[in-house]
C-alpha cells in the first residue's frame, strides 16, 4: 500500500503538498468557472457585455452611441445611490432609506434655494449636511441601539418619506423656476459630448464617486476596516477596530453620497420632484446584488455595483426599445435578478 514515498521535508505545508496531487484534467466549463473564480469582478462585466450584445441584436436603435450614452445618463442617479448602498451592504447592512433620503434632500435643496432665497451653494451644502445627518441617525440607531439595519432603515424610510411630503407639500418646483433662480442645482444635468457620445456631468459624478470609493476602500486604512467590520465585527473589534465608529462613518458617508445623488437627480429630472425615484431603493439594492456584493457583508468589489447598475439600465432600455410590454418588462426584470445572482453563485461555488 505504501506506493508513494512520503515527503521528508517537515517544513512543507501539508495543504500545499496535498494540493500538488490535484492534476486531474478539467472540462472547459470548469476552466471558465476557474477563471471567473479568480476574477470575480469579471462576472458582472461579462453579463453586461452579453446583454449589450443580445439587445443590440434584438432591439432596433439599441446599438447607437446616442442610446448607449442615454443609458449612462439614465443610470447615473441610481448608480450613485448604489455606491452609497454598497458601502452599507459591505458592512453586512442594508439601507432601505437611500431613495427617500435622496428625494428629501433634493426637496430641501430646492426649497431653500427657491422659497427661502438662500444662496444655492449654501443650500447645496445644507442639503449634503442633511444627507449626512440622516446617515448619522441610521448609524446611531444601528450602533447605539444595536437595531438591525434592515429594521432601522425600514423605519427611517417611512420617516424620511413623510418628511419629504411635508417639506415639499407634494409640489414640484418647475424646471423654468430653477433655470431662472438656481441653475446650479441643475448642474449635473448639463450635457457635454465626448467622442460622439453625449454625457451629463451626473454620469461623471457617478464615476467619480465610485473611483473615490474604490480608492478609499482599497488604498486606505478606513477601507480595510470597513471590510473587516463587515466580514466579522467581533473579530474586528478584538483586533483593535472601533467598529461602531467605522459603522457610523459608513452610514454618514452613505448619507452624503445620497445628498450628492439628490443634487444629481435635480439635474436629471430637470425639476425638483418629490414623487420621483420611488423605486430607487430597490433598484440600488438590485444593482448592488447583481454587482456581486454579498448581502452578508465583507465580500465583493465596489466596482461591481457600478456594473450592476449598468446591467439594470441596459436591460430596462433594451426591453423598452424591443417594444416589450411593461408587464413583461417586470417579468423579465424578476428573472434577470435571479439569473444574474445564480450565475454569480455558480462561480463562487467552488470556493466553499
Amino acid at each position: 500500500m505504501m506506493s508513494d514515498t512520503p515527503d521528508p521535508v517537515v517544513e512543507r505545508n501539508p495543504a500545499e503538498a496535498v494540493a500538488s496531487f490535484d492534476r486531474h484534467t478539467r472540462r472547459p466549463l470548469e476552466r471558465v468557472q476557474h477563471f471567473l473564480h479568480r476574477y470575480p469582478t469579471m462576472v458582472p462585466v461579462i453579463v453586461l457585455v452579453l446583454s449589450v450584445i443580445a439587445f443590440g441584436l434584438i432591439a432596433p436603435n439599441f446599438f447607437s452611441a446616442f442610446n448607449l450614452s442615454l443609458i449612462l445618463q439614465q443610470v447615473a442617479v441610481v448608480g450613485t445611490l448604489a455606491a452609497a448602498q454598497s458601502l452599507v451592504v459591505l458592512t453586512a447592512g442594508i439601507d432601505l432609506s437611500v431613495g427617500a433620503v435622496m428625494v428629501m434632500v433634493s426637496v430641501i435643496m430646492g426649497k431653500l434655494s427657491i422659497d427661502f432665497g438662500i444662496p444655492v451653494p449654501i443650500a447645496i451644502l445644507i442639503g449634503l449636511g442633511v444627507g449626512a445627518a440622516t446617515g448619522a441617525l441610521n448609524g446611531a440607531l444601528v450602533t447605539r441601539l444595536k437595531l438591525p439595519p434592515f429594521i432601522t432603515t425600514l423605519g427611517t424610510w417611512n420617516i424620511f418619506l413623510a418628511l419629504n411630503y411635508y417639506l415639499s407639500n407634494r409640489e414640484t418646483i418647475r424646471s423654468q423656476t430653477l433655470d431662472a433662480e438656481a441653475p446650479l442645482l441643475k448642474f449635473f444635468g448639463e450635457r457635454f459630448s465626448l467622442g460622439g457620445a453625449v454625457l451629463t456631468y451626473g454620469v461623471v459624478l457617478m464615476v467619480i464617486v465610485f473611483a473615490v470609493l474604490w480608492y478609499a476602500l482599497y488604498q486606505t486604512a478606513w477601507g480595510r476596516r470597513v471590510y473587516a467590520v463587515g466580514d466579522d465585527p467581533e473579530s474586528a473589534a478584538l483586533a483593535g477596530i472601533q467598529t461602531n465608529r467605522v459603522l457610523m462613518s459608513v452610514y454618514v458617508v452613505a448619507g452624503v453620497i445620497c445628498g450628492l445623488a439628490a443634487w444629481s437627480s435635480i439635474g436629471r429630472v430637470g425639476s425638483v420632484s418629490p414623487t420621483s425615484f420611488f423605486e430607487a431603493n430597490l433598484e440600488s439594492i438590485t444593482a448592488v446584488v447583481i454587482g456581486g456584493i454579498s448581502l452578508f457583508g465583507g465580500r465583493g468589489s465596489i466596482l461591481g455595483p457600478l456594473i450592476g447598475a449598468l446591467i439594470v439600465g441596459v436591460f430596462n432600455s433594451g426591453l423598452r426599445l424591443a417594444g416589450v410590454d411593461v408587464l413583461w418588462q417586470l417579468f423579465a426584470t424578476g428573472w434577470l435578478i435571479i439569473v444574474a445572482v445564480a450565475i454569480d453563485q455558480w462561480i463562487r461555488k467552488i470556493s466553499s
Partner: protein
Amino acid sequence: QEPVKACIITKTDINPFFVKMKEGATAKAQELGIELMSYAGKIDGDHETQQQAMESCIAAGVKGILITPSDTKAIVQSVQQARDAGILVIALDTPLDPIDAADATFATDNREAGRLIGAWAAGRMGDEAANARIAMLDLSPSAPSVDVLRNQGFLEGFGIDVKDVNTIGDEDDARIVGHEATSGNEEGGRQAMEALMQKDPGINLVYTINEPAAAGAYEALKSFGMEENVTIVSIDGGCPGVENVKAGVIGATAQQYPLKMASMGIEAIAAFAKDGTRPQSSEGLDFTNTGVNLVTDQPVEGVDSISVEDGLSQCWG
C-alpha cells in the same frame, strides 16, 4: 418605407383606466398601420420611469408620443427634448403644467369631473346639504395632481370653500369629516372608510377618488349596516363602476373616455406624420376636451347627466 412609430406612456400599468387607454391606442394604431410602443410608470407618481420612457421613445425615433404625466411639472423638460427632436407630444388625460408645454392635450377636465359629482351630490341632498357629513377618500399621501384636482373639484361643486385650490385638506368646513388615502384600490377604500366611519358614524356622503375605492367604501358601509343611508360618488366610468351605479352601490360617477383620448391621440399623430398638421384645441379651451359625463339614474336638476344605460354603452374596461 418604414412604418410610423409612436409611443404611449401611461402613469401606471396597474390602473384599468390606463390599461384601457393603452388598448384603445393599440387598436387605433393597428388600424392606421402605426407601430406603437407602450410604457408605464410603476406606481402613480413614478416620474423617473416616465422620463426614461420619453428618452427611449426619442432614441427609437418615433413621430409622436402620448403621455399621461405623473408629475405634470417635472416631465416638461423631457417633453421639450422630444419636441426639439421634432416629435409631436400629446398629453392625455392630465394636462402638463404649463399646459402649452405639450403640442396638444386631450383630456378630461378632472376638476370638472369632480365639480359634476359635487354638484350632483349637493342637488341630491337638497337642503340636507347643510348637514352633510362628508368623507373624502383620496389617492395617496404623495397627492399627485389628479388627486388634488378631483378632490378640490368635488368640494367646489358641492359648494365648499376650498381655500388653496392646490392643497388637499386645508379646508375648514365642518361638514368634512376627514381625508384618508386609499391607494385607489378596494382594500384601501375599505380601510379608509372604516376609519372615517368611526370618527363620525353619521357620515352620509362619500367622495371617492375612483370606483375601486368606492367599491371598498361600500363594503365597509355594508359591514356597518349603513349602506342605505350613505351616498357614494366617484369618478372614472369604468364598466365595473357603472355597473355599481346601476346596482346602487355608487350614486353617481363622472365618466371619462380613455379610449377616445387614446384613439384621438393616435389619429393626431397619424395626421402629423402624414403632412405635419397639428391638432387644435377645443373652442375656448387650451386643451381638447374629450368630455366627461355624469352617469346616474337619479338625475338632479341643473346638473347634466346621462343614464346608466348610456354610461354602460360607453364604458371602458
